[in-house]
């Protein structure tokens, strides 16, 4: 960059003040500021792509955790295929290699008019553009008796880390012959095939260690993602162990009693050895504080950029956004992040804005060397993100193909975590 002399600088500053135009911060030596709330697949990827896309944008991530455990592949930890360490990532490369400023604090409020984020430990951060990628919060109030506290006894394990470790410890502590209740949530929710892959992984653990045990799935829905593939796997690998009950049979979980480990439906109370209660969800609370949510609890976005429909300086990425037809998944968030990063760089540096193209693929491990997948390509449509084409694994595939699909899943995990965390 050419250095300005004092007179040029004063003239520029005067012109800016006189015309009221946004200050060309780059010329004045100050960088444009991107602040990212959330250091998961959406936030981490957006921050990394903006940082590698321009030296003229200062990028910060506000994330309370020092290490991030991915929700994707946390079922494999429950099944004994992964350690918690192997799905836990540091932010070291993002700060050391990409110069991203990691702020380990909680974003508690956003002043959209003043373009400021308020931090939990006091202080504020100014931004030119803001990314809100907080993931999900639980709607505990949809199940009587369920709460953050009750979730220590009956974990949802739908935000990975302590909750996942608690569920694993409970499975290891239960006696052979006990009942594990898994309660999948109503739509829309994070990772549509996730609860059913989890059933496979818990069954895998029980079959090897506590074969007299049962799994009862008390679903809030009547159908689910990759249903034929999962039900095929339940029969083939875990015959007689799993009972799936749709909403039309039980009415779903109405209440829980954490003290007595009871799960209550309309007609029945199930005594559980382990209860994995996954409640209905909404966008992470900061999205609501920032005024980005609709009545649904999720954040409407422009399908060509992931820009919030509520505030043009803010982008919402991942689970918190209304990105249907895309599912809420780590892959979707990572994909959306690259569209958003391109739009943010175009805003801040005038670089080229390309058409919005998205992708999602979801691998599920159903047993050792038995993987299935579903996926689609998407584009920004008139009113929403639209599917351009899709695919799904078939029932009855050969063992070789299933083993190859399972191994692909491992390759994807290595690829996406490299793409998020550097």
């Amino acid at each position, binding site marked *: 960059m050419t250095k300005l002399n004092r007179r040029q600088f004063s003239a520029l500053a005067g012109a800016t003040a006189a015309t009221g135009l946004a200050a060309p911060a780059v010329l004045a030596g100050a960088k444009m500021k991107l602040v990212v709330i959330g250091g998961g697949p959406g936030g981490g990827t957006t921050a990394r792509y903006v940082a590698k896309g321009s030296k003229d944008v200062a990028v910060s991530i506000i994330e309370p955790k020092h290490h991030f455990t991915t929700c994707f592949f946390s079922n494999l930890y429950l099944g004994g295929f992964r350690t918690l360490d192997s799905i836990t990532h540091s932010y070291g490369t993002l700060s050391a290699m990409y110069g991203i400023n990691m702020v380990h604090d909680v974003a508690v409020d956003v002043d959209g008019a003043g373009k400021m984020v308020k931090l939990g430990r006091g202080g504020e951060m100014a931004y030119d553009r803001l990314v809100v990628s907080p993931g999900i919060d639980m709607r505990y109030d949809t199940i009587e008796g369920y709460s953050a506290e009750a979730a220590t006894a009956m974990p949802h394990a739908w935000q990975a880390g302590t909750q996942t470790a608690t569920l694993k410890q409970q499975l290891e502590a239960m006696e052979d012959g006990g009942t594990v209740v898994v309660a999948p949530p109503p739509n829309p929710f994070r990772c549509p095939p996730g609860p059913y892959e989890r059933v496979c992984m818990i069954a895998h653990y029980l079959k090897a260690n506590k074969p007299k045990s049962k799994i009862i799935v008390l679903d809030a829905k009547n159908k689910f993602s990759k249903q034929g593939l999962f039900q095929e796997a339940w029969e083939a690998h875990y015959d007689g162990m799993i009972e799936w009950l749709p909403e039309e049979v039980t009415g779903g979980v109405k209440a829980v009693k954490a003290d007595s480990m009871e799960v209550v439906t309309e007609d029945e109370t199930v005594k559980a050895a382990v209860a994995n209660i996954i409640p209905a969800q909404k966008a992470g609370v900061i999205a609501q504080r920032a005024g980005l949510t609709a009545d649904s609890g999720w954040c409407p976005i422009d399908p060509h950029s992931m820009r919030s429909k509520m505030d043009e300086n803010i982008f919402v990425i991942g689970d918190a956004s209304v990105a249907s037809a895309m599912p809420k998944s780590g*892959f979707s968030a990572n994909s959306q992040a690259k569209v958003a990063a391109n739009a943010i760089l175009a805003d801040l540096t005038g670089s080229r804005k390309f058409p919005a193209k998205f*992708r999602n693929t979801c691998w599920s491990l159903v047993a050792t060397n038995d993987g299935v997948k579903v996926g689609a390509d998407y584009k920004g449509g008139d009113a929403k993100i639209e599917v351009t084409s899709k695919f799904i694994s078939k029932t009855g595939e050969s063992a070789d193909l299933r083993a190859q699909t399972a*191994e*692909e899943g491992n390759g994807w995990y290595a*690829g*996406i975590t490299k793409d998020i965390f550097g």
Partner: protein
Amino acid sequence: MRKGVFVGICGLLAVIWWTATAVVLLVPAAQAEDLSARIAAILAKADEAYGEYLAGQCVTCHHAQGQAQGIPPINGLPDTYLVQVMLDYQLAREERTNPAMVNVAKNLSDEELGSLARHFSKLEP
């Protein structure tokens, strides 16, 4: 007279045989030439900045440093080869039947395919 007819028929058959053989032999050569021309036309549309942007959707699975684990590395492969592979995926032929890649390939325009192939060909393997 009969002999003449016989020779004539033989001659005709020989010509038919020769023509048929020539067609069988020449068609693959013509197809190969068409394919090379098609690949060249696709690569002529490459826009490297667009390719870099689109590649973001590939490295979610194809490890950015070319690490192979279940999903093959694609960094540093010749652009003509990458285009040919993706054309095979578009038609799900020559064992290129993985539904994830067939799905990706059929959504790419020639410009997008050329841009991606050029981008990945320039990366360190």
